[in-house]
């Protein structure tokens, strides 16, 4: 299973990607929306994990653009911001609050969600 991790925190995405690799997942990472969009033009992913609050292009906007470029991928939102607005927007966008995770996230629950959305 191929996963794309998108977060502006370099240390976070790289570590998370490495841990996923250790668990047998193929994990790529990007530190900005543009970077992530560039990746999906060449590669297809089963699940994309996106941070909502990012400079320049927000996570929500990145997800919308990805839908257009490569429809059918699954998305999980991750945020450090517990605000009501983000929560509403995020959970609506992915079709339910189940796919809206608050940082910091235990890797087990993230993997659980990934399995859940990808239907494996």
């Amino acid at each position, binding site marked *: 299973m191929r996963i794309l991790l998108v977060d502006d925190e370099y240390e976070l995405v790289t570590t998370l990607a490495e841990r996923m690799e250790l668990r047998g997942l193929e994990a790529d990472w990007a530190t900005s929306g543009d970077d992530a969009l560039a990746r999906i033009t060449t590669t297809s992913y089963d699940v994309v994990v996106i941070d909502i609050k990012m400079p320049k292009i927000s996570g929500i906007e990145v997800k919308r653009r990805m839908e257009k470029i490569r429809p059918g991928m699954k998305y999980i939102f991750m945020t*450090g911001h517990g605000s009501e607005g983000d929560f509403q927007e995020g959970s609506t966008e992915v079709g339910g609050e189940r796919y809206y995770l608050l940082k910091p996230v235990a890797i087990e629950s993230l993997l659980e969600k990934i399995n859940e959305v990808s239907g494996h």
Partner: protein
Amino acid sequence: MSITEAIMAKFKPEFWATGGGEPGSGRRVLNFRRTWEQAILLMLGVSLVPLLALAHLDFQVTRNHAENEMALRTGRLLNDNMRAVSFFLQERRAALQFVIQTHTLAELADERGLALNLEGLRSSVGGFVDLGLFDGSGRHFRYSGPYSLQDLDYAAESWFQEVVTAGVHISDFYRGFRDDPHLVIALRRDMDDGSFYILRATLSTEWFNAQLAQFKRSGYGEAFLVNRQGIVQTPTMNYGEVLQRVRLPELPSFTEEFRVFPGVDEDGRELIIGYAVIPDAPFILMVIQRKSEVLRSWVQTRLVITAFVAVSIILIILVILGVTTRLVNKLYQADHERIKAMQEAEQVGKLASVGRLAAGVAHEINNPLAIINEKAGLMRDLLVHGNQETRLVRMPVLLDAIREAVERCAVITRRLLGFARHLESRWQEVRIQDVIEEVLAFHGKEAEYRNINLCVDVAPEVPVFVSDRGKLQQIFLNLVSNAFAAIGDGGHIYITGTMKNEAQVLVTVTDDGTGIPAVDLKRIFEPFFSTRTQRGGTGLGLSITYGLVRELGGNIQVESAVGVGTRFFVTLPLNAAKLQDGREENANSVG
């Protein structure tokens, strides 16, 4: 506590202790004590001045009227009495004239003849006491009357001298041989042979006394006769004995025929004095009235009016004092409530801004926490799955990354703690640039996410000055929060600090957001005015900001254009601390 103090304490309205103003605070709308004083003075002025003026005018007018009336009446009475006296004397003189012209000397010198004439005169015109005949040498050769005066020699008497030369004489009142006041009328009758004789009649004072006593009964003072030397001729109660000098401090000169004028008696009481010279007689009729007596009815009316005015004034003063005190107290209480509400709102606002900051901080802390979480997780993964070499190479790097993330957290918490500490009101030296940057630091992430351009430009000549750092933080936090709310993603916020003049710093906060419509612009500093009520605005943010700026002794203004942006101008005094000291002294002095 003395009684007056106890009374004062009981009636002293609440606002009394507020004293004279609180400079730099801008919280109290009014100096209630001064307002109270001004209202009292104004109301007393507009109600009492016309009342007193009217009362005074009325006093003058009625007094003049009463005095004129009195002078007129005195004149009339004087004239009437003068005519009566004059007529009385002329009548007697004419009767005597008739006697000597219709009788020969022989007829008169006959003892019965003179008595018959006396009888006739008494029963017709009246007033005669006796008749006498004198020859040219002054011998009283025939007398008819109650006294025995016959054959006395009158040659040396002054009246005799005068009648010899003038032909007629009306005497003053005098006592003469009979020692009883009387006056005489003497006429000279010339004979064909060149000799002459004199007919003399004595008049009693009864008629004069009765006539003039009538006047006294009228209640308007006294009337009496004096001679030209001011010797009293007929009895008077208050102005001297008969045949004594009239008792007045100043005797009129009697140069005019008729005069009414004000004067005083020997005891200094005010008088209205009138006199009239009786024609062809040595008498002057005097009418003297005491002003206090003739003005008595006017004085009584006056007393009633004065009492009425005094009672009115007391009532007006009481009503004005009562109403004004009550109204000002209501105002004070309303203002007090308002200040309390504002203080509560400020507290709420402070808490809200801390809450907002806390939410932002939680978000910022969550990112490094997530990093620590993943790094620690990876270390565990490596311990479980990795080989010895990997562990030795990777562990220090991962631990460094964790320490770095912890440092990031520490920076954020320290910033929040520092900010929260400064929220306590305290006067201290402040570098305005630090305050602004501190406030902006909290918005750094949001600006980053929303791609907002923040620019701060504080001129180097702006000095460190003493102010309340906590209040400044809140002021700029509110303004910057508003600016963030007003602009879209990719907008600009521009903050400048310059010296407005020697004593004032000007800080502007400019955004290129939606702007404020002109109709709202006038009201944005009013409490509870909000265009964001549907979106959680309390409408207190800018009114609190306004209050805070005023408390620092500064002021805040705004200009805005819809679609272009908004600029707030905050002017702060460099010497606000001095104002603050003054205020505290003032607060201490009133307890």
